[in-house]
């Protein structure tokens, strides 16, 4: 065989592989996780669950590698560069939790053009060639107010704790809350930004409390409920119903109050293990499955009667979590069809 025909042969076989992924077996496939931030317990749980689930998948030979990479500064430009490196390193799929829904589109398009599967989750990207595993954050906001409406049919005063200003998730949850408040007897009497962190929320709530009337409830976004409780407990106010966000310290505080005075509330947030759902979806796409571009993942709700069990299953100082299996991914794909 001449060199030229060898090259042609190689090119043809590569082309065939690329053109007909349904033949592919994913045991040679390498999947990368591009993550923009690691500085809180939710992200740490997300990375740990990724390691657990993908480590087992690599061991079992389902995929060849599933490496996680986190940028240090939570900047879209930095993450775009990271994705470009992944393209050069020849990954077959990139699972991404994006710093911005739009700023990474250029890098994502480059990856798609290079034949790489891109699956975004939590922080999704709008680039049409990528898959999106989205959470209905608006519904998360609406659900809180609907729960409170069942508790307080006559309505009352709400304090809203928002997340990080300028982030899409914050706008969505808040929009959902305001939408549901419109049609209810509740009034939002104050709003502060807690940046999804207990200490920031504690500070912001302590600062606005003196100027507020009596509160019926506090609507939150997760990671801020315990801080709000601490700030309110430091005053002589009655404890309002604070909606929690599945963090272990929030659940522990809730359980303590429940034991002491029958405190009732609800808790809802996204399970950090959704990174593993994204992993399995990427694996399925590589395996040749027909997967719709838009998938959704339900958020994790903890009710009064499920509190003790959820608390027992959550590691101290972490977040209530679910890790997803291949079957879960198939079910999610099926549901989206």
């Amino acid at each position, binding site marked *: 065989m001449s060199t030229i025909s060898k090259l042609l042969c190689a090119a043809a076989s590569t082309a065939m592989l690329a053109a007909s992924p349904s033949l592919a077996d994913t045991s040679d496939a390498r999947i990368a996780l591009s993550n923009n931030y690691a*500085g809180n317990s939710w992200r740490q749980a997300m990375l740990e669950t990724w390691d657990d689930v993908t480590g087992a998948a690599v061991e079992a030979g389902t995929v060849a590698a599933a490496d996680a990479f986190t940028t240090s500064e939570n900047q879209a430009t930095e993450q775009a560069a990271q994705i470009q490196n992944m393209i050069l390193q020849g990954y077959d799929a990139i699972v991404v939790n994006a710093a911005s829904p739009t700023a990474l589109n250029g890098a994502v398009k480059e990856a798609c053009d290079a034949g790489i599967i891109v699956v975004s989750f939590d922080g999704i990207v709008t680039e049409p060639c990528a898959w999106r595993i989205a959470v209905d954050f608006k519904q998360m906001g609406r659900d809180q107010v609907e729960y409170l409406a069942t508790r307080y049919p006559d309505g009352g005063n709400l304090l809203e704790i928002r997340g990080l200003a*300028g982030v899409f998730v914050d706008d969505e949850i808040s929009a959902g809350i305001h939408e549901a408040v419109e049609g209810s007897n509740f009034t939002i009497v104050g*709003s502060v930004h807690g940046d999804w962190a207990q200490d920031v929320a504690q500070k912001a709530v302590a600062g*606005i409390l003196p100027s507020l009337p009596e509160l019926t409830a506090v609507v939150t976004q997760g990671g801020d409920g315990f801080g709000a409780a601490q700030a309110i407990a430091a005053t002589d106010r009655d404890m309002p119903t604070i909606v929690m966000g599945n963090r272990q310290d929030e659940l522990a505080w809730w359980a303590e109050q429940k034991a002491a005075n029958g405190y009732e509330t609800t808790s809802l947030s996204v399970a950090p293990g959704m990174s593993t759902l994204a992993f399995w979806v990427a694996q399925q796409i590589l395996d040749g499955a027909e997967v719709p571009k838009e998938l959704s993942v339900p958020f994790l709700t903890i009710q009064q009667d499920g509190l003790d069990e959820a608390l027992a299953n959550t590691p101290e100082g972490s977040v209530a979590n679910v890790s997803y299996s291949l079957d879960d991914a198939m079910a999610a794909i099926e549901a989206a069809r």
Partner: protein
Amino acid sequence: MSQTTTNTSSHAMSLRDLVQKPWIWAYLAAAAAFGATMIISGGQGAGSLFYAALTFAAFSAIVGVGQMFVITLGPGNVDLSIPASMTLAATLALKFMDSNPSLIVPGLLVAIGVGIGCGLFNFALILLLRIPPIIATLSSSFLFQSLAIWSNRGIRVKPPEPLADFTTGGVFFLPNVALVAIFIAIVAWVVLERAIVGRWVLSIGQNLRAAQLSGVPVNLVRFGVYVTSAVLAGITGFLLANFSGGANLNMGTEYMLMSIAVVVIGGSSIAGGNSNVPGIWGAALFMFLIVSMLNSYGLGAGVRLILTGLIIVTVVAFASKKGYAA
């Protein structure tokens, strides 16, 4: 009234002296923000707002004191590793104490030890490797933050009960953390204004070459200043983590800009060589009260940030007016 303005009576003199103090503007701004919040709340909750302001200003004031000494050293000196040092000290100390009340004192020593370690590392980068302080402290902060992540994976360990009670409690109308911060500020004031070491720091900031020639042990002073800054960051991290029920990986984030802001708003010169301690407390109170005020008025995040920026510029302009006039 006309009498006091025409006559150079001692009362008028002291008032004029007071207005000329660069730190007075921070207190005036804090008082204005407090008053404006009270207008919207109809005078309710003045006590609890004051108490909350003292509590949260305490954390900014302690890191601010450390940052002030660093900034005083002159152009290019700033400690950007404060947030990471706070996080690392708090994470390791709380993990070490493991909610055990008998380990409170060793836990505090762990936090201080981590602070010393961070300071030594920063100074080693600056002196031995001759890296500019901004770059040195920024890069070491990545290292400290990674160590904090690696050591505990973001797990929040509860503080020992007595320590949590101490940091959230208070005596009469003063929160305990504020008492600690006031004590630290007084010590810093004595060091800066009354001790030879303070004069050395100021002289280095005013003119490094002149300080060297007049026999100031420049490197020893710089060493002490960077270690002090990191130790104060460690103590703040320790107090904050015990106050808020555990160490968070992102607990230090807002103290990066906060520590610099309280120094500048307090009337210290960002170019170094001219600093004051009282202004740090005024600015720390102001930084808390301004956010409370804008939150109470129910303004959106965008408007809030714009107004915060504008007000800070105004206060700094007033505080530094004396410098331009002279």
